[in-house]
C-alpha cells in the first residue's frame, strides 16, 4: 500500500506492506535508526516519536496508519546547524543518559510532556515518563534534565544537592 508522509520535514511516498510497524519503516526503509526498539509489548518507550506533534510509540503503530502524518524522530530534533534541542542539551548537562539506548525515546517523550504541561513539577515529570524505561540512570538525572528543560527551578528535596562532602 502506498503512503505519503513527512518525516523531519521531508515529504516522501513509499509502498509499504500493511503489517510493517512504523518503527521498522523508519529504521529499515528510511534509515532513521535513531529510534530504537526495546520491547515488543509497548512497555519500554524506546521507540517514541512524534506523530502530528504527539508522542507515540512507533512500535505500536502501523506505517500505513501514519499516511498523511507529520512525523518527528530524534534525528529531526536538533537544529539544522547542529545545535542540540534544549531537551537534548538538558540531558547532556544533567547526565541524563548513560548507555543511550532509551534516550531517543525518552527525549521525544519528554519534549511532548513539557509542551503539554508547561511548568510541571517533579511528580508530574515522573508520572509523565511512566511509559519510558531506562535501566542505567535510576531516572534521577533524567528527571532533573526534564525539569531543567521545562524551566522548573524549584526542584524538590529529593533532587537537591548531594555534595555535603564527608571526608574520612
Amino acid at each position, binding site marked *: 500500500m502506498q503512503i505519503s508522509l513527512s518525516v523531519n520535514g521531508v515529504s516522501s511516498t513509499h509502498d509499504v506492506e500493511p503489517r510493517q510497524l512504523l518503527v521498522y519503516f523508519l529504521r529499515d526503509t528510511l534509515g532513521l535508526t535513531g529510534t530504537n526498539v526495546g520491547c515488543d*509489548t509497548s512497555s519500554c518507550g524506546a521507540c517514541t516519536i512524534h506523530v502530528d506533534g504527539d508522542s507515540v510509540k512507533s512500535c505500536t503503530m502501523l506505517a500505513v496508519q501514519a499516511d498523511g502524518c507529520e512525523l518527528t524522530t530524534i534525528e529531526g*530534533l536538533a537544529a539544522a546547524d547542529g545545535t542540540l534541542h534544549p531537551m537534548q542539551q538538558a540531558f*547532556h548537562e544533567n*547526565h541524563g543518559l548513560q*548507555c543511550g539506548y532509551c534516550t531517543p525515546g525518552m527525549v521525544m517523550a519528554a519534549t511532548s510532556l513539557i509542551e503539554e504541561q508547561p511548568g510541571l513539577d517533579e511528580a508530574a515529570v515522573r508520572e509523565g515518563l511512566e511509559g519510558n524505561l531506562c535501566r542505567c540512570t535510576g531516572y534521577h538525572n533524567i528527571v532533573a534534565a526534564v525539569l531543567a528543560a521545562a524551566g522548573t527551578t524549584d526542584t524538590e528535596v529529593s533532587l537537591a544537592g*548531594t555534595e555535603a562532602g564527608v571526608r574520612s
Partner: protein
Amino acid sequence: MNATGTDELTVTEAADTVDQAGLEATGNGDAERMFGQRRLRREDPPLLTGESRFIDDLDLPGALWAVLVRSPYANANIGSIDTSAAAAADGVVAVHTGAELAEDWANPMPCAWPVTDDMVNPPHHPLATDAVRYVGDAVAVVLATTRQAAVDAAEQVIVEYEPLPAVADPEEAAANQVLVHPDLGTNVCYDYDVTPDPDAVEAAFSAAAHTVSERYVQQRLLPSAMEPRGTAAVPEPFGGNITVYSSTQIPHILKLMLAITCGVPEHKVRVVAPAVGGGFGAKLNVYAEEVLCVALARRHGTPVRWTETRSETAQATIHGRGQVQYIELAADDAGKVNAMKVRLVGDMGGYLQLLTPGIPLLGGFIYHGVYDIPNYSFKCQSVFTNAVPTDAYRGAGRPEATYAIERAMDALARKVGVTPEELRRRNYIRPEQFPYTNPTGAIVMDSGNYEPSLTRALEMLGIDDVRAEQQRRRDAGDSKVLGIGICTYMEMCGLAPSRTLAALKYSAGGWEAATVRMLPTGGVQVVTGTSPHGQGHETSWAMLVADQLGIDPDLVEVLHSDTAISPLGLDTYGSRSLSVGGTAVHLATEQVIEKAKRIAGHLMEASPDDLEVVAGSLQVKGTPSKSMTLQEVAFAAFAAHDLPEGEEPNLEAQVSWDPPNFTFPFGTHVALVEIDTETGDVRLQRYIAVDDCGPQVNPMIVEGQVHGGILQGVAHALWEEAVYDTDGQLRTVTLGDYLVPSAAETPGFELDHTVTPSPSNPMGVKGVGEAGTIGAAPTVMNAVIDGLSHLGVTAMDMPASPQRVWSAIQSAERPTAPQEGSAP
C-alpha cells in the same frame, strides 16, 4: 576444591602507597586539573541525536537474517524436525538443525570457570541436537533475506518433542528426583567448601549467647539492558577474515572464544562492539547466537545477522542471581559476632555459560561483609535446573552475599535488642585493622573505614525524627506504617589479580592493557582494553591523560571496543574498568612522559630528570624559558631526525597492568519505606547512599552509576522476579510481566560520599559500577521488615510484592508484649 584454598590463594602485598600527587593536586602545578571535575560526557551528543550505531542499526549489505526456533518445553527429547515448509517459504535461504551443523563446532560452548576439578559440565552447542533442557533452548535456525521472512518461516519449522519431567526449583533439583541431564545421573554441578577451621566454627556456635538462623531466596532476575542483544558476522570468503559485530561487553574475550569454539584462527577474527545499550553482566558472555552467526556466515559465505526480541531475551539471555541461602550467626551477649556459617544452593540453569559456576563463589569469600567475624564457613552446592543458565548480573555474587549478612545482622539486632546501627558499630572491622586478612585467609582487604558512612547516612535521614514519626504512626494505629532499613556493604571490585584468579581456577587473567600515543600534530590517542557501554570511559580516560600531560582533554581521543584497534584487553565488568583499565592508562601515560623527557632532554641539552610537565610542555625546573611543548617533542619523535642514542621513534607506550589486589569499596545505604498494611503496597519514600569508591575522577559519572545501581537493587527487592512454574515454563517473558520500574515508582536519591583511597593502585581508585546494586536490596528489605516488625513480621522473601507483604502480615504472630529487639 574441597579445602580452604588458603594455600593457593596468594594475594600480593599492596602496591606502593597511593600516589598523593594523583590524589591531591594536579601534580603539574596546574589549576585546571580535570580529576574530580564534573565534566560533561563527550559520549552524549551522538547518543542524543540518534547518530550512534547500535548493533541493529548497522547497515550490512547482503546480510541474511537469522531467527532461531526455540523449545517450548523445559525438558524433552527431540524427535524429528521437519524444515521443508520453512525452507520452501518465500525469502528463505536455508534452515539448519543442530544435527546438520554438528561438524561446524571445534569445541562446545565455553565455560571459562571450572571451579573444581570434578565440576560437571555437560557439553552443549549453539543448537541442541538430541534434547532440550530449558524453554528457549534453540533447535533450529532459519536464514532469510528479510527479518519478516525469517520470522514467518520459523513458525513453519515443525519439531516433534518427547516431553520429559522437568525441575526448575534448585532445592528440588538437589534431591535428584528429576534429572535435568538424565545421562549425568545427578543434578549436582559441584560442591565447594571454604571452611578454614570447622572445629573453631562449631565451638563458637556452642559458646554463643545469641544465634540466628535464616533462609533467604535470591530470586532469578532478568538483567534487562534496554538494548536486547544482537550480533552479525561478516565474512571475507576470499580474504579469509571474519568480522563479528556484537552487542557485547567483552569483544576481546569473545574473539578468543569464537576462535576456540568455531575453529577459526584467532588472528583471522575481529570483534567490534558498536554502541552497546547497557550490559549489566548479561552481555559478559559468549552466546549461542554469536557462535552460530560465525558458523553460518562461513558456511554461506555471506553476512549473517541476528537481533534478539525482548520476549526472546527472557529465554535466550542469562538470568541473574538464583540462589537459596542459609546463613547462621553466632554472637556473644553484646552482639559481637564470632562465627558464621553459610550454605548455598546455586541454580545453574540447564547448562554452564561463560562464568556460571563461579558467580556464587564471587560472594563466597566475603560473606562476612564489613564485620570482623573470625570464624567462617561457606559451603555451596550448585545444581542444574531446567531453566535458562544463570551468570553474572550486576554485582554477581556480591549482592547475594551482602544481602544475606545484612539481613542476618538485622535479625541478630532484634534478638540482642539493640538498634541495627548499634549492632553494626559493634561489629565493624575497625580502620586500624586494615590491611585485614579476612576469615577465609584468602582475601586481604586493603582499606576501609565504615563508621563515618553510617553516621553520615543516618544524619542525612534524620534518624531520630523518622523513628519518632514511625512510632507515632504505630501508636495511632495508622494503616500506613514506616520502615527504616540500613545496610553497610563492602564489595570486592577491580577484577582481578591474575594469580588470585588462578587460585579460583578461572581460566584467564585479570589484567588490563592500554596504549597511549602522542601524534605528531599534538593530539593523543588512548587505546584501552576496556569496553564501555554507558560508563563514560571516553570522557574519564581523557580526563586522566589530560591531567598527566597538562593538556586539554579534547585533544585526547579514546579508542576501544574493536579488536583491530585495541587488540589487547579483558573488557568491562566487575567494577574493574577504572581501577584496572584506568590504571593501565595512567601508567602508559607516565611512560610516554618519561620517553618525552628523554627526547626533550636530549634536544634541549638538559637532564631528563630536571624536566617537568607544565601545561602541555616539558620545562626545565626553575627555568620556564627553557621548554618544549609536548607536541614539539611528539613531532621530533615522529620525525626521528635527532633522537637519543638507542631511542625508538614515536612517542607511544603500551602497558598491561595486573592489579596486586582487588579493591574494596564500601558504603552505608538507608531507605525509608511506607507500607500500606491493608494492601501490602510498599512505596520507597527516601533512599540515602553514602558510598566510598575512593577518589572520584568524575563525580557526575560516579553519581550516575550509583543512581542506576540503586534502582536495580531496589527493583530486586520490590518488583523484579523471573518466575518459573513447576513445569519449567517461564511466566515473565515480556516487560509487561517482568516489572522493570519506571520513574513513576521511584524517588530521587540522596547521595554523599567518603573518600578512603585504595593502596592497591597509584590513583587510589576503587570502582563504583556495582555499589548501588549491592547495597540496595538488603537496605530496602530491612526497611520492609522493620516497618512490619511491630506486627510480628520477621521474614519475607523478595520481591516484597503487595501480596507477599499482605500475606506476611496475615500470618505473623502479633506480639502481645513489646517485642524483643524492636528499635527503640
